[in-house]
Structure formats: C-alpha cells, structure tokens
C-alpha cells in the first residue's frame, strides 16, 4: 500500500483505516438498532400476536443459517491468519469457503422467503395468510422481512467485497506484508455475523 502524503508512516495510515472501519461499523449498528427498537415497541404492544406469528418462523432454516454465518466468520478470520503467515494457498481456500457459506446463506434465505410467500405470508398490504388475522401479526412479518432483508443486503455487499478481496489475494496484491484490506473486509463480515446473532433469537427463538 502506498503511503499517502498526509500520513508520516504506514503504521499510522493503517491504524487510521482501521479506526475508520470501526466508526463505519458503529454507524451500521445504529441502522439495525433502529429496526430492533421498532420490533421491541410493537412486540410490547402486541405480545399475543407476535407470539402466535413467531410460531410460523422457520426455525430449522434460521438455525442452519446461524451455523453457516458463524462458521464463515471463523473461516475469514483463519484466512487472515494464514495470509499473515504467508500461506497464500490456504488463505485462498478459506476465503473461498467463507464466500461459499455466505452464498448458501443467501440461497437459504430466498428459500425461506419463498416458503413464506407460498403460504401468503407477505409484508404489509400483500399479507394474505389465512391462519392469522392481519392485525398485529402482519407487523411481525413485515419486520421479519425488513430486518432479514436489510441484513441480507448487507451480506450481499459483504460477499461482493470478499470476492474482490479474493481476486486481489489471488493476484498477489494482498500479501503477508500488506493485508489491511483483507483485515477490514473481515471486520465488516464479523459485524454482519454479529447482527445475525441478535436477529436470530429475536425472530426465531423468542417465545
């Protein structure tokens, strides 16, 4: 990485990049926090309806997705570790696994959406689920789509970034001396995982 004119050392430049990424992650957390707050408010108002609606969440798919994401956080961290120690081959494999796990996550999410839509569980004005009257329950499902949808969009962005990083690693632009970009990408991926860790119990496990 080239030293920019406003920095007097590469160490400072890298430390600043890391700080910038942390600030960005804090900002993104607030985006999800607002949705969580909305969820909490409506849950407080409609405890029975949310309880009834949550019974229709696909706990199996949700739990599989949790394992996929948790594992992917591990593999990306390992990938950085291997890069640091100059083991490029292993790093590429681990990063590819991370991307694969992320893609699987997205596919399962689409499957889950498809299953819900087939039953008529759609957000807002399109809701037509015969088992549960709309009032109150539809809010649970709309929030479900909004929260998991926003999260899935962030996963998509993360996958794009990881794919670009894989190419750079492959082409030798990321090395054991210069792997800051991979570190930053890994940090972002951990946030995406962390958000899911909060989402999963709230939507799938809560009674």
């Amino acid at each position: 990485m080239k030293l920019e004119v406003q920095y007097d050392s590469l160490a400072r430049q890298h430390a600043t990049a890391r700080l910038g990424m942390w600030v960005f992650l804090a900002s993104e957390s607030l985006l999800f926090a607002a949705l969580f707050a909305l969820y909490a408010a409506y849950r407080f108002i409609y405890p029975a309806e949310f309880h009834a609606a949550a019974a229709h969440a696909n706990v199996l798919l949700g739990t599989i997705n949790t394992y996929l994401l948790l594992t992917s956080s591990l593999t990306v961290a390992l990938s950085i570790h291997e890069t640091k120690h100059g083991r490029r081959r292993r790093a590429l494999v681990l990063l590819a696994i991370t991307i694969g796990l992320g893609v699987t996550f997205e596919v399962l999410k689409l499957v889950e959406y498809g299953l819900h839509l087939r039953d008529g569980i759609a957000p807002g004005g399109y809701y037509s689920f015969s088992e549960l009257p709309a009032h109150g329950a539809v809010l649970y499902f709309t929030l479900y789509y909004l929260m998991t949808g926003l999260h899935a969009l962030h996963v998509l962005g993360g996958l794009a970034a990881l794919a670009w990083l894989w190419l750079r690693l492959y082409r030798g632009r990321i090395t054991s001396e210069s792997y800051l970009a991979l570190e930053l990408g890994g940090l972002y991926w951990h946030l995406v995982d962390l958000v899911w860790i909060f989402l999963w119990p709230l939507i799938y496990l809560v009674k």
Partner: protein
Amino acid sequence: MNELLRHLLNLPPQASSVARGIDTLHYTVIGATFAGVALVAAITLYFIIKFRRAGAAPGTTPRVVAPLWLELGVAGGLLTLFCAWWVVGFAQYRELETPPANAIPIYVTAKQWMWKFEYPGGPASSETLVVPVGQPVKLIMTSRDVIHSFYVPAFRIKQDVVPGHVVTTWFEAIAPGSYQVLCTQYCGTRHSFMRAQVIALAPEDFARWLEAARGPLPLPGAKGEGQGLAERGREVAAKHGCLRCHSIDGTPFIGPTWAHSFGTQRALAGGGSVLVDEAYLTESMMDPNAKIAAGFQAVMPSYQGLLDPEETAALLEFIRSLRDVEPVRPAPPPTGPITLPGGSRG
C-alpha cells in the same frame, strides 16, 4: 396588567379556566427571555465600546480566564431558573391532561377535512361544538384517516388526534362566546380549511339548545346525523354479536351484564377492582384479557380492528345509557365449563 401583556403579546382572550394560569407562566418566561437577552446585548455593547481597538493592534492582551465559581454560578443559576419553569409548566400540563370527574363527554371524530361532534344520547353536528359555560367538557376523540390536531387558541388547549387511538382532552369555557377551532397537524390538501367553532352558552341556554337539538327520534332503522348515538350502539352490539354473551337487562350470562354497569366499581379476578368507565370498556373490547371480571372466564375475543372508532363510541354510549337499568334477576354468575353459541366469535 394581565390584559396589557396579553395584548402586547397578541394572545387570544383567556376563555377557559386554565388560560389565565398558562398566560401568567408565559409572561414570566418571555419576560425573562427579553430581560436575559437585553442583559447579554447590553454587556456585549459595553465591552465593544470600552475595549474597542484604537489605532494599531496591540502585541498582546492580558490573559483572562473565567473563574470557576462564575461559570458554575451562571450555569447553576440558569438551570435552577429553567427547572423552576419546568416544574410549573409540568404541573399545568398535568392539569391539562386530567379531565375532572364531572366533565361531560362529547365524542369527536376527525377526518379529512372536517370535525364531527356527537353528544351522548343526543345530536351530532359538524363544524359547531356547543358547550355550556362553567362546566368541564371532556372530548373523546379519534381520527378516521390521518393525524389531525384539535386546537382552540382561546382555551390554550391542543390535542393530536391519531388514527387507531382514542385520545382525550378537556376544557371549561368561562364566558359565553364563539371560539375558533383550528386543525393544527398537517393532514393534506385542505388542512388549512379544517376549522370549526366552539359555541359556549350559558347553562340554561345550553339546556334549551340540547333539548331542541335532540328532537323526535327518526324512523327505526334510519342511520345518519339525526340518530342518537346510543341507538347506533345497540345496532352495533347486535351486528357484532356482543349480545350473544352480554345481556342488557341484568340477566347473568357468559359475560358481565351491561345493565347497571357503567360508573360502578367492578371486582376483578385475582383481586382489585376497576371503575367501569370509557377507558375500561374500550380496553375490554380491544384487549379483553387485560382485566377479567371476577367470576367470569377469559373467553372474550378481541375486537381490535373489527370495530371502527365510530362504532366503539356508539357502543360506549349504549352501555352508558343502560346504567340506570335495574338488573332483572340478580342471580350469581355462571360457573363451570362454557359453551359459546355458534362456536366462533361474532
């Protein structure tokens, strides 16, 4: 003095029981504002004149730092002053939010772009809200579409009217007159046209007006402006199946009877009791398991989303109209397993 300040500040007449007190706080706060800003301006002006630069700039100026006691004094003094205003303002706000027990209820429906007023057991009207002087009036309000706001500048009262909520405000007019009502929450194209009038009449005049407004009952089955609200409530009760569980003549049945219930204390399962008023009845319709009456079981379904605000208001009025009906057979309430007629909710 009050009148002088009121005119200087362009405030409307103090036509409600709370207006004078609120204006007094207003004068205090605004007076302090003017005084404080004048002080700041005066000190600044004084410094500009006393310390203005004459000739070339000096090489240095003396180092002056604010003493901590002065900073804390200014901050503490101002905070004390602001909190004192907050205390008075909050006390007045609580009064504004708490209708007196003897307030007569009037139902208000806001919709784009008009106000509708309905009297218990009596007439309904748009654009004009007739009230007696010297008698607290409680407005029970909801909106049919978007957020509106009921504002009477002369009374110093305001309440946002939110769809999906039933909100209350109250006032007591202290002088006969006509007072403007303005919608003050932007609600669409004709927001600025959504106005009404409060007409305050001397009590005898009000009684005469109400008598005349009630008039002969319309033909049975007729609906509309002339129909009494309680009659409408009876229709709603029949239509939504309430009468399958609740009697109106005191007969004990699946749910508590509506006869002689409004305004009484009701014992609750698990201890405690509650006053049977609009709030409790509305809650019972929307969230029936929140409070279970002693001796009854939790079998009532929720009507949230099934009753619109106008129907809710009508039901409340109908139940209220039955408060003097003596129960026909004061037998103990049923116990044991319940079978609902029809098997599902009405």
